[in-house]
């Protein structure tokens, strides 16, 4: 008799089993890629064609539709890593470490994209590729944190031993994410203050806010698709490693008995 799987949230731990995660994510993946492509296509149409030109910034305002979601995702990825790290340290959840490790390069890529597009926008608007403004500097520091985290994970010979030191570093670095968010309000320098998430409502026009939010949704879906794919790769990489270690130990055992 086939057991009916319990899908209540209380039983979310069933996905702790990597094999269950693999079957579940294999079914989820086409939907994630498909919806990400669809939403991004719609968002790019609105962002690049249908949205109005800014009266001050001209066509360069369209860079914002990539820049702002990338910056949001840069912070969202780090939050994902921090929550996963909590799962590694508190519950020793086997997939939490896989999730944190898979999210780091994606987060670094989004952070780099935000810095790059910001720089491309800054040249015509501010007249310089880079300024040492608080927001830019703290995003650069976030990028360095990603690199440090990836370097620490790579420094261990055994990936299983790297899990918890990496989680500790990720949580310590998590202090930086609120500093990024509020640095603009604290130092109040060249980078414009928050214009979407404000207590008195967004200050940008609806014709620009809607494409921006569609792009943000598309970026988030893209992140989820990439993250699930990277997690699957990481699990398979670990299985290959386990097989290699087992084969090597069997070989050395066979040699020892033969001699």
């Amino acid at each position, binding site marked *: 008799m086939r057991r009916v799987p319990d899908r209540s949230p209380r039983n979310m731990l069933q996905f702790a089993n990597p094999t269950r995660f693999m079957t579940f994510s294999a079914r989820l993946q086409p939907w994630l890629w498909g919806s990400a492509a669809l939403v991004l296509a719609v968002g790019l149409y609105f962002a690049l064609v249908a949205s109005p030109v800014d009266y001050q910034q001209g066509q360069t305002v369209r860079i914002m539709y990539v820049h702002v979601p990338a910056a949001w995702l840069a912070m969202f990825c780090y939050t994902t890593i921090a929550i996963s790290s909590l799962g590694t340290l508190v519950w020793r959840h086997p997939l939490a470490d896989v999730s944190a490790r898979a999210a780091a390069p994606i987060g670094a890529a989004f952070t780099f994209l935000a810095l790059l597009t910001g720089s491309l926008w800054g040249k015509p608007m501010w007249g310089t590729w880079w300024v040492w403004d608080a927001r830019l500097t703290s995003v650069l520091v976030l990028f360095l944190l990603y690199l440090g985290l990836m370097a620490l994970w790579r420094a261990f010979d055994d990936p299983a031993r790297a899990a918890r030191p990496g989680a500790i570093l990720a949580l*310590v670095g998590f202090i930086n994410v609120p500093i990024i968010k509020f640095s603009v309000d604290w130092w109040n320098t060249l980078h414009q203050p928050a214009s979407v998430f404000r207590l008195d409502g967004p200050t940008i026009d609806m014709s620009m806010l809607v494409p921006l939010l569609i792009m943000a949704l598309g970026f988030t879906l893209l992140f989820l698709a990439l993250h699930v794919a990277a997690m699957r790769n990481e699990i398979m990489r670990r299985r290959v490693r386990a097989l290699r270690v087992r084969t090597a130990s069997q070989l050395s055992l066979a040699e020892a008995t033969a001699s």
Partner: protein
Amino acid sequence: MTGQIISLFRREVALATRAGGGATMGVVFFLILVALMPLSLGPDLALLSRIGPALLWLGVLLATLLGLDRLFKADWEDGSLDLLTMSEVPLALTVLTKTLAHWVTTGLPLVLAAPLLGIMLNVEPKGLAVVAFTLLVGTPALASIGAIGAALTVALRRGGLLVPVLVLPLSVPVLIFGISATQSALIGPVPMTTPLAVLAALSLASLVLAPWASAAALRLALE
């Protein structure tokens, strides 16, 4: 328990100050860094006196990295770290003691050397006092954040290369508020107490919180 902490503190200070301890290396490194600044920037005294306080802060930040590699590694290699974890003193307190001893032997000499090296950079007398004071407030934060990096990499063969990469991004807030406290005391317009209070808060908070993270990392290294 207090006796154990005091004897651990004295052991750390003795190990660092006796032959081979390398406590003075930080100051020598700091001197070299400051000597390199005029060589790279040019011997313009007006320029040096203007950016001198910032150069001193930067030099101290880099010099504190120097001794971190050995902070836990020597104890880990000869097994005394195992003994320290088994004592009745909580590991976080042990880490705090070691961090404070490390600060007394490496951080404090840098704070005391900063005004002397500041004279070489033509910093005005008020600036020398202000830099020494902000460094005194800020360096405990640098030491305790650095201890996290040292603890995370203790079991790694090439950990020494990794420590600066892990620690420097985390010390950015300390540098920012240390510099802004110094600048606002010398130039204004913000009263010095505002950034100084944040700097002191960073120091106190990291002295309380960082030993927990370091202790957790050390326990993992000993598994």
